[in-house]
């Protein structure tokens, strides 16, 4: 509880300072604000507790189980399903895809009709989900084989730069942002525990240097794929 209060303190200070000192206005609905803050504190406390007793052990035990089973195909299938399944329903992504459809309709890339925009948004969501699934697969393969992460990431950056040149200008901003919205609050702990669990159950891998990095791939590939989508449509 006390930890969560401390986590939230900076936000309260920033909002208080700007509202009272810079904008020189009273804080509206002080009661609601305090009640809401109490809920946030309670929620954060529960979430962190849940992480420690559930998501972390689950991710790790699955990583150990797959390592023991020794079937590469199933592990990769699981990696893909986890990446794809958690992204396709992600609310932040649904919001961004809707915005992107508006931009595309405005720019004359697609017809300015509701059905065309809906189809475009759905296509975009599947594109991003596919790219995240693929990202987790590549990331898991990297952990198994022990490839150094920087070469893969640098390759990805070069891909982003090349695609930026080729893709229509109006899609670039959305593509860059889509990298950030794919990784949700429940996916991150699970995927991190999976990566660290895999790296610690395989001989010769170090959980610190090899276990992290799955999230990095999941934020990089959507940028490339969304720009590709913008070029095709």
């Amino acid at each position, binding site marked *: 509880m006390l930890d969560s209060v401390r*986590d*939230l303190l900076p*936000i309260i200070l*920033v909002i208080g300072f*700007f509202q009272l000192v810079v*904008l020189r*206005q009273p804080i*509206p609905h002080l009661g609601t*604000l305090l*009640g809401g*803050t109490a*809920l*946030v504190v309670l*929620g*954060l406390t*529960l*979430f*962190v*507790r*849940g992480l*420690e*007793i559930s*998501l*972390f*052990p*689950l991710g790790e035990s*699955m990583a150990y189980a797959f390592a023991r089973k020794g079937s590469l195909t199933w592990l990769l299938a*699981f990696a893909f*399903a*986890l990446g794809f*399944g958690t992204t*396709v*329903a*992600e609310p932040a992504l649904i919001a961004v895809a809707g915005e992107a459809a508006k931009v595309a309709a405005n720019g004359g890339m697609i017809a300015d009709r509701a059905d065309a925009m809906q189809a475009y948004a759905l296509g975009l969501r599947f594109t991003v989900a596919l790219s995240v699934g693929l990202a987790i697969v590549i990331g898991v393969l990297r952990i198994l084989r022990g490839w150094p992460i920087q070469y893969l*990431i640098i390759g990805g*950056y070069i891909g*982003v*730069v090349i695609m*930026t040149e080729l893709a229509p200008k*109006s899609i*670039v*901003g959305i593509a*860059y*942002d889509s*990298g*950030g919205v794919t*990784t*949700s*609050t429940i996916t*991150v*702990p*699970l995927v*991190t525990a999976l990566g660290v669990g895999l790296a610690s159950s395989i001989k010769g891998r*170090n959980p*610190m*240097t090899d276990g*992290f*990095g799955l*999230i990095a791939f999941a*934020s990089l590939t959507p940028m490339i794929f969304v720009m590709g989508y913008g070029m095709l449509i």
Partner: protein
Amino acid sequence: MEFFAHIATVVRSTVFDVLPIVVIIFAFQFFVIRRPIPHMKQVLVGFVYVVLGLALFLVGLEEALFPLGKLMARQLTDPAFVHGAAQAGAAAVSHWYDYRWVYLFGAAIGFATTIAEPALIAVAIKAQDVSGGTVTVWGLRIAVAIGVGIGIALGTFRIVSGTPLHYYIVAGYLIVLIQTALAPRMIIALAYDSGGVTTSTVTVPLVTALGLGLASTVPGRSPLLDGFGLIAFASLFPIMSVMAYAQLGQWRYRRAQARRTKGD
């Protein structure tokens, strides 16, 4: 009453968000691994905690902090505030420094929301575990938060000045490349990861409101074309700040060692 109905709606939508993950995990556990989940009861209780915690967290943010944060983003970008009330009527020419409070607000709110970001807390706990304390929970969180703060401040400056997004991103990539070559190897994967975890539940809505508010009030900017891109800044700069954090630690360690050998 309405309030509880709202909580119920958010709980329901959080359950639906989590459902695909639960289905995938249980399907693989039962059909592929074919072994019962260890500590099944504890895992289920934990899942309830996570869903309920996340739902309460979101309700609290939506009820209290987001409306105020968005209102402030609007007020700070309002031309009447930016140019001072006296000048608001006249066709005021915008200078980039007229928006100094916006940059400061962007940096402060980026830092503050990142500290409260649940996904980052998760990664930081794991990183402290795995690194045996070389990377601490608070060290990592503050390093990432500084990165996000700088990123948002620079991102708002970009919207005001209207320079192309990809110049900044490409330059940022170059700095990341150079740091990758110099930073301790153990931090690299974690640093790349921290770019992705910073931007979720807390940061995205507030930062998006700031970006859209700016892009719709600064003359000559379009909210559709210029409003995006802040998230990209917020995911790029933490990579640099986390590597810098490790580089700083390494440098201090070396200096302490050098002093010790001199002392002997």
